[in-house]
């Protein structure tokens, strides 16, 4: 259990991510409606909600895999605009872990980790490899370094994906339903890695249905429905005392199985 929580009400939180009145349209469909959210340094945010509520769109706007239409997004002091320079700089400091892992199939595990540092930071090979191996040890699969991704199990692949994101030394990591595509017995090995990361002080935003993880790790749980943030709060309040009816309904559906 992770005990040290951040006090979200502190006035001088060092903000890493700010979303102010953010709208996002896909054609005529509005995926995000006036979203306001702040994430301070070292804080863990879990975003939950029904399908189509805009959770994935929200985090994909943060590293500009989607472009927001209205409002302001500031990541680590950089405002996200159309200028290309901004995007690359932001992406180097924000890591992302995908639901379907997205490991590069034509590269070995260790090459997957070394590619971005080589191309983006021009890290010399020996140093690059050393960092990569250390990270593989951290996610507990150093022996898989030279295998092809397809030879690994789902849980192993996702751990490699987390290590790959860590190789760029990001200040923030975004998780887009990291365990949703995994067989049940592999979920905990990935969650364990995420809990370790949390313990070490990483700023994390995680879209997930794993409510146990939210309860034990999150500083802020955010519930989204139909593009809006309906309710948010520390897990104690959120799970035990939800204020909004929609939140109550969702929690009932997801927690009684």
């Amino acid at each position, binding site marked *: 259990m992770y005990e040290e929580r951040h006090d979200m009400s502190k006035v001088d939180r060092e903000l890493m991510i700010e979303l102010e009145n953010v709208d996002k349209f896909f054609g005529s469909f509005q995926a995000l409606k006036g979203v306001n959210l702040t994430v301070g340094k070292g804080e863990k945010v879990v975003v939950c909600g029904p399908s189509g509520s805009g959770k994935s769109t929200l985090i994909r706007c943060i590293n500009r*895999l989607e472009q927001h239409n209205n409002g302001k997004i500031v990541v680590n002091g950089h405002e996200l605009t159309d200028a290309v320079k901004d995007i690359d700089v932001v992406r180097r400091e924000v890591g992302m872990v995908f639901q379907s892992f997205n490991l590069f199939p034509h590269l*070995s595990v260790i090459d997957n980790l070394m590619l*971005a540092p080589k*191309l983006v930071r021009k890290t010399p090979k020996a140093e690059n490899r050393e960092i990569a191996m250390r990270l593989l040890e951290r996610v507990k699969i150093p022996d898989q370094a030279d295998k092809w*991704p397809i030879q690994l199990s789902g849980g192993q692949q996702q751990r490699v*994906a987390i290590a790959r994101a860590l190789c760029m030394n990001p200040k923030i990591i975004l998780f887009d339903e990291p365990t949703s595509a995994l067989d049940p017995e592999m979920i905990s090995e990935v969650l364990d890695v995420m809990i370790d990361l949390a313990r070490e002080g990483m700023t994390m935003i995680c879209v997930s249905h794993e409510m146990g993880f939210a309860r034990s790790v999150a500083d802020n749980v955010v519930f989204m429905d139909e593009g809006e943030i309906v309710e948010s709060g520390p897990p104690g309040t959120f799970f035990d005392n939800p204020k909004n009816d929609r939140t109550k309904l969702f929690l009932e559906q997801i927690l009684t199985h």
Partner: protein
Amino acid sequence: MSFDIELILDSIPKMLMGIGLTFELLFLSLVLGTVLGIFLLILRISGRWYLAAPTMVYIYIFRGTPILVQIFIIYYGLPQLEFVRDSIFWPILREPFGCAIVALSLNSGAYLSEIFRGGVLGVDRGLKEAAAALGISVRQRFIYITSPIAIRLCLPAYSNDTVSLMKSTALASTITLLDMMGIARTIVAETYAPYEVFISLMVIYLIITWAIQRTFAGIEKRMSRHVRREA
């Protein structure tokens, strides 16, 4: 109607003298066509309409008209135009070999660019997003992620297209070139023995087709090591 074995044994070496020309036509057009195809692909996916639109028109025209007509236009037709006769390309364009290469390359470039495009589109979107999320630039994504995967995806179609190109080289015989087909036609004209000559030529072409397919199958196997599941 008898089957003249002696004629076959006599014709085959003669036709094989044309194999050098057949291969020259094939390899040269394949290489030039591939380069052109990549160039057209880049224009097509550039996102700029003034580059993509003319490219699409070009591809449409070259895939929508018979290659024989294209060969005739270039060999018989271009000399009609004065500016062609005055240009620096004239030495190439007045020779049947040059015309054949030009026609075959322009044609295969159009087909190949569509094949390459199919490969590029076949690359999983998630992989490109993962690379983007790591901060890898558009250009680097294309080189290190999209291209290797796209090439492997294109290989079957590229192999088929190479076979098609090989078959098209036979059309060079219609503009006086003495490749294998051209030699065969002369022999038949002299001997009135189409079966022996053409059937043996068919066998030769089939062997070449088989060789091409085997080569590409081998390349594909090597490139798919990371795709096959180890038992």
